[in-house]
């Protein structure tokens, strides 16, 4: 349980260098206070390391909740599922991270091989080693290397023209798996940027409701109704869903540092006091590390 006054500001969706952000976990921990944030969470893609670092910092200026953002997929589509307030040492969530990491490493290696075989793009051994040592190597990291070597002019070209030429029969984490692992680790599973699916989709109206109902069936407990990329109309629609299905409500910017256009704290919720009961219940029920 955490006490915040009505004027407090929160941001529960931030990325660090552990995934695709540009600020280290330590830097984020300092930046939040500067941005006037009173409660924050770090939600790296498929990685807990940033949270473990922050939880171990000797002093924090703002209250902190452990977080993670799982990229999930099933027959019906792609989802980003946030997990909050889990025990970072719990086995279920760590097992799932390892599994996801294994898929990702395998895929990255296959991609590197593919662009070498098909297009003759080669990198230095040291570069590949560093790439594979990242917590979460992915397409953008490969693209950066390609640009560095002059194989492509920009990220879009690197990904569309070359990397995406090979489609994998990929192995992936399913939403029900992610939700279960979060719950079994003492956390609260929340659907990230619901209308935007995996970040790039647009899911509206009845389709959104069907998606939400399926995920509720799997055990999802909340929705990120306040989000940097949402209009007032989308926010109020999601708040209505939250009320109808008695879901928790959270607010996040999806800040990635200077990689993206989003500012820290920018999530369309200026003060906690403006949030609905679902947000207050979330703050009441989620496990925080320290204030």
């Amino acid at each position: 349980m955490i006490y915040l006054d009505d004027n407090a500001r929160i941001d529960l969706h931030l990325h660090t260098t552990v995934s695709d952000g540009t600020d280290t976990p330590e830097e984020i921990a300092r930046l939040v206070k500067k941005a006037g944030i009173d409660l924050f969470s770090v939600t790296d893609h498929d990685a807990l390391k940033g949270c473990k670092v922050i939880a171990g910092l000797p002093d924090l200026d703002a209250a902190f909740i452990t977080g993670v953002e799982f990229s999930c997929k099933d027959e019906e589509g792609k989802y980003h599922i946030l997990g909050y307030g889990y025990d970072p040492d719990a086995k279920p969530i760590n097992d799932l991270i390892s599994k996801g990491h294994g898929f990702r490493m395998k895929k990255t290696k296959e991609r590197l091989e593919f662009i070498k075989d098909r297009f003759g793009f080669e990198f230095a051994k040291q570069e590949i080693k560093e790439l594979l040592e990242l917590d979460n190597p992915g397409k953008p990291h490969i693209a950066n290397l390609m640009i560095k070597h002059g194989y492509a002019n920009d990220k879009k070209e690197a990904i569309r023209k070359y990397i995406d030429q090979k489609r994998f029969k990929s192995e992936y984490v399913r939403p029900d798996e992610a939700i279960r692992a979060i719950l079994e680790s003492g956390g609260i599973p929340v659907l990230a940027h619901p209308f935007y699916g995996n970040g790039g989709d647009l899911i509206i109206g009845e389709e959104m409701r069907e998606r939400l109902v399926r995920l509720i069936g799997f055990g999802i407990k909340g929705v990120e109704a306040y989000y940097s990329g949402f209009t007032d109309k989308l926010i109020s629609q999601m708040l209505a869903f939250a009320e109808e299905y008695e879901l928790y409500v959270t607010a996040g910017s999806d800040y990635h540092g200077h990689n993206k256009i989003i500012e820290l704290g920018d999530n369309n919720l200026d003060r906690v006091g403006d949030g609905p009961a679902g947000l207050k219940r979330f703050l009441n029920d989620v496990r925080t590390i320290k204030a």
Partner: protein
Amino acid sequence: MEEVRGEVLDKTIILHLSGHIDSNNAGQAWDEIREILAGQHGHAVEIDASKLDYISSAGLRVLLRVRKDHPELKITGVSSEVYEILDMTGFTQMITVEKAYRVVSIEGCEEIGRGANGTIYRIDQDNVVKVYNNADALAEIQHEREVARTALVLGIPTAISYDVVRVGDSYGSVFELLNARSFSKILANEPDKFDWCVKEYVDLLRKIHGTVVPDGELPKIKSTVVSWGRFMRDYLPEDESKKLMALIQAVPDDNHMIHGDYHTKNVELNGDEVLLIDMDTLAVGHPIFELASMFNAFIGFYETNPERIKEFQGFDYETSNRFWKSVLAAYIGTDDQERLQAVEDKARVIGYTRLIRRSIRRHGLEQEKTKAEIEWWTAKLIDLLHRVDSLLFLPEEIVLDADTNNLQAAIEFIDKHLAEAGCSMKAQMQLDVSAEEIFVNIANYAYAPGKGKVRIKMTVEGEPPVAKLTMIDCGRQYNPLEKEDPDVSLSAEERQIGGLGIYMVKQSVDDRTYEYRDGQNILTMIKSIQ
């Protein structure tokens, strides 16, 4: 990057977006936009999306981000596909979003109507386009759409444009109008439909003038006419100019609708339905201002050059004259030529005022041909100003739906006549009560369970003045005067229900007659009002 290009035009920075903006390039697009906008404070920002094919949620974030720094952001040239995305996600509520305009050609299309600010062409079997004279007509189009919607909500049959298109260098608005023919065309080609045209044209005119418009929804015509009067100060002798202003100022405010350009090209027969089009001149005000513009449309514009009408209306000056006289007689509800001439003279005062002002503003006073015309109109106007002492008139007849909701309109009509004749309070109350009784009877029983009309005729004549009130319906034959009088000596509990109202009618008026003729119940009440 090819997706973003900046351009500074006057005080506006235009960001041209093209192709796809999605998660692969949204970040880069934002960086470039930020660079273009950097340091350009005080500029308005507009996004030109005419070459934008697709925008994903990542692209939407870019728009949101731009709007955050530039709340007045406007997005133009949006394709239907992109518009749908912006609409579903609520962007159209937060940002001014203008759709891209379809391009339509009117080459070889039939002209079917022409109004003050545009011409209407048929572009295919089902659709017409109104092309605006003014190249920058978007505000006008928006205005016309809004007033047309207002009119439709208030029960006036009209067509509402469903699309805005580009026609050459102008804009046009597109309407669905199936097989419609204007009344001008019918009058020109089907002389046997003359009487039918008069009736339908007057019915619609009465419907318009019987429509009360909520405050503020339409402009007041009187303010416009006042400005015409002011303009005339420089072109009339002082006394006449003062008289003109006084006449205009004495017309009371009126919250009933007028069309403002009610000529036969603006009334269309669409299947069985008579439709009003060209709604941009819609206003509220006294019907004399409508009659003035109608006088001009049928007579005033052509008095000095009768040949000219054929070009515009398709029928000749004689037909136009006859149509105007018939319409006026039907609208006022009398065949009394003297009375009709009096009303026409009132209309001419405003009609000539408008013609003179229009001609001076368009041609100045130096052109030989128009100068003669202006002098002719001015002489007529001065003559009228010596004779006309009020612009007010009262129609002697109204037709209402036989519905108790219209009771108030019926009583208002009667009271206006009585007020003008200086009726005593008592006599007015007695006549109102009688009228109410008969009106409600017709509304409840004459057509039940169907619907129908009630026609009310009212005149006050003679010295001392006598009011004659006639109510006519085409419902089942029924003589209310035959109803047996109740025995008023009995106590209230003992009396039969009903019949008391008619008894009161009989007591309140000096004389009453009932007649059933040509399928009509005609009840006439006569009462001395002093």
